[in-house]
């Protein structure tokens, strides 16, 4: 199963879980499974049109999926998908 690494700011939506595992053929399959299981994550990842939000990047290994085939990027059983959010420091 592919693994998703959840960044600290989003772990409050995954019961502090740092990793999520799901089967699927594409990055999108796995992200869908993730946001179905952890509903609170969805608004932080995807906009109203289901597109990835501009302040979050998704990587397959060390490559940005925007420079692969975006959500349709095929994955393998041992793929590591990282969600990387913009962080600024302590002040809001």
């Amino acid at each position, binding site marked *: 199963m592919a693994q998703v690494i959840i960044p600290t700011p989003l772990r409050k939506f995954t019961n502090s879980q740092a990793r999520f595992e799901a089967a699927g053929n594409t990055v999108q399959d796995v992200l869908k499974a993730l946001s179905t299981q952890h509903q609170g994550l969805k608004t932080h990842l995807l906009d109203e049109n289901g597109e990835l939000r*501009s302040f979050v990047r998704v990587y397959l290994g060390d490559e940005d999926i925007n420079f692969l085939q975006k959500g349709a990027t095929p994955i393998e059983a041992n793929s590591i998908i990282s969600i990387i*959010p913009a*962080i*600024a420091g*302590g002040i*809001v």
Partner: protein
Amino acid sequence: MDKLNFSKQELERYSRHLILPEFNIEGQKKLKAAKVLVVGSGGLGSPLLLYLAAAGVGTIGIVDFDHVDESNLQRQVLFGVDDIGVPKVEAAKRRLEKLNPHIDIKTYNTWLTSDNALEIIKDYDVVADGTDNFPTRYLVNDACVLLDKVNVYASIYRFEGQASVFNELLEDGSRGPNYRDLFPTPPPPGLVPSCAEGGVIGVLPGILGSLQANEVIKVLSGVGSTLSGRLFLFDAASFETRTVKVHKSPDNPLTGEHPSQSGLIDYQQFCSGERQPEEELETKIKTMSVEEYLALRTSGEAHQLIDVREPFEYEIAEMGGELLPLGSIEKNVDRIAKDRKVIVHCKAGKRSADAIERLQGAFGLNNLYNLEGGILAWAEKVDADLAKY
């Protein structure tokens, strides 16, 4: 470069650089000739400034508007207890001059803003961004792009750190990716963690700020290969590190295929999400200053004080309110009085405004008042015994 001479003291001081084959006296000359601006002298800025000064960067500028506070000392190792209440730039300059008398320290005791950023940054070769908020991060990035300066970046949150080198001059004469290639726009305020979630493990800025200093020295000396085009990620809790690629994006509003921005903008507005309807709602929230609340409390008028912070914050300081954390405020609406004034407070006033907005929207309550500045303002102006956190 050749006109730079080192005194005997300097040669001795920098000898561990001078005997490093890749670095040697040529690298040291480059550091001495360099001008680096450090924006923010807090958690990241502390190790950055200490190492850059120790290493012999010839001119170091420091921008910070803040004063040293007790709560800074958990991570801002540049300062000591004697510095509490002193402007950070002043305390920093004093410390760094003791550390290395052979360098020049310039200070800017001000917020970096769209009005002063270009003027301040233009005199420097490299900017190291050690700020703690999105508006200043976008401002620093955009100003560096507009002025062709390298932006050495690091950022932290709780146990997580990021670092990169933006807008570096590459061998082919072009510039490497910048922050806008990675994150074209900031998260809207509603999705930015609130101050209750903003804690940080004290050593983390020390680690990231040190990495940042290392990248600054590499950029200046040309030794090694920098993080340009790469983003370094560190999870201090699990001790996992990753380095991922950063590409230039065709959609970058400054450097992409169809640039839509040619100067600095209003970054507070840019990061506020420009949500007009919500601003209108906010004006409907009644507020009460801590002085007004003190008068109400002293008058003996019946009222209720609600504290919407988290239990762990209540443990640090409380002012007699009933604890109903924001996350469960709607569920606890029965515990909120309907027949008298209800004053709602949090740490600084944002979460209590959110709570009032939700309660007014869902239950039509109209007896709610937001305590301006929250418990921090109460501690500042009324109860000096309370811990400010």
